[in-house]
């Protein structure tokens, strides 16, 4: 049995999943992201975005020069709700 080629580690997306998305017409990175979940895991695409973008472009027959990243949504690193819920300044009273 052949193994899986993992293109997005966080969400267990395989190369076959990308082929499948392309075959269904979801070959743009933003569309394939929604269909396969690629780039939506704990790393938010840090590890997988470039490889997936390139693979999709080639699979759909688009030149790599057209490849665009998906929108960068904050936060770049996960941040605890408790950090955000604290008072804005040391002087300020409770949240």
């Amino acid at each position, binding site marked *: 049995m052949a*193994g899986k080629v993992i293109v997005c580690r966080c969400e267990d997306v395989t190369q076959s999943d990308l082929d499948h998305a392309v075959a269904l017409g979801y070959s743009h990175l933003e569309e394939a992201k929604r269909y396969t979940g690629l780039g939506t895991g704990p790393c938010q695409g*840090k*590890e997988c975005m470039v490889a997936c973008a390139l693979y999709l472009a080639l699979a759909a027959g688009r030149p790599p020069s057209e490849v665009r990243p998906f929108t960068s949504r904050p*936060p770049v690193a996960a941040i605890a709700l408790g950090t955000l*819920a*604290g008072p*804005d300044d040391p002087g300020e009273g409770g949240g």
Partner: protein
Amino acid sequence: MPRTPDCALEFEGESVSAVAGEPVAVSLFAAGVKVLSRSIKYHRPRSFFCLAGHCGACLMRIDGQPNIKACRTLASEGMKVERQNAFPSGGLDVLAAADFFFPKGMDHHTMFTAPRAVNTLMQKVVRQLGGLGRLPDPSPEPQELPAGERLRVDVAVVGAGPAGLAAAIACAAPGRRVVVFDEGDRAGGSLLSHPAHGVAAADRLAAEARAAGVAIRCRASAIAWYPEDEGGLLAVAEQPEGGGLPRLVRVTAARYVYATGGYDVNALFEDNDRPGIFAARAVGTMLIRHGVLAGARPVVLGDGPYAAALCEALAAAGCKVMPIDGVRERVVAARGRAWVSGVDVQSDGKTGPVTRKIACDAVAVATLPAPASELARQHGAEVAFRPEGGGFAVLTDGNGATRTPGVHACGDVCGFRGVLAARLHGSEVGRAIARAFARPGEGA
């Protein structure tokens, strides 16, 4: 560097020895714990990959908190560490059967859509399988939430690698407030994983920066540029010394420099996520910072200068290194399940591709790092896809200025260039910023 354990972690009820202050992921690896996590859908065994806090492969439950990066958490006496998302245990996970039932992948959108009873049952099962860690343990007393801080500086640099530190040094001047943030626990960035540079070189550069009046704040992750808040601010989450929740620092500066480097990315081959397949820089970091060998017979995959330096260092440490350049010879599959035991390597023979099997106990993947361009993009910088630069490179002029006034970038985030070139680039960009400050009307 010999490694002498001096404390003990509590790993799933067992005591595991560790060096206080090293990443928990490294302690566990050194103690022979191979599987740190189970993947979300197929419950495939996973260990850490990048050892740099980027990849998401080493999330564990640590001291009652879910989804904590074991590679960013420093070992200390009595720390409680557990694996997540496995049944009955991280070592033996029966849910990994999913990996066999769906050998290629799965389209859960169109799976079992009918009949209705089956669909309903499937959705119930999927709900139970979803998610990674359990909720955080309740805190015994009402939790004190950390107070934020506001910081106004002249230059805010994100990334204390060779580029960021060099830029800070070059634009530092008496009376000018220059601050460098870095998510790591120590300044140095990619110097810290490079066998030809290492901790000593990183410390020297950081010392030079401090001597020039630069403030370096480690364990401080810049999380976003928010253009609409208070006229624009850089949000930074800073981990306090003694642990606990990070605090939020709202930073505003006259100039921003993004020197965020690049993310390690994996190569594409069958079973490329097996434990034991590491980013090359993780292998380098373990070796030169923590005195831990990734394996006795490692494959090093890649043909860049970093791969060469790593091969040399591993050989000097007594490993039997097997370099695969990735061009003439390509890795097409990994063998082994809970740990990599070999790779299939393909090359072009006279009559077609020839495959040979190599036994190994670790793989170091030395692909080009992908520019960490998110913050710069949020701050209006333009990027372009540059295969030779590792991905989406931030576009700048000769002075490192992006298209957004006051926003600069230098080093690998502008396309991979390597430690020395990144440092030179940082110096140039820093000097350009210093010149701009010296112009009338710009004032420091």
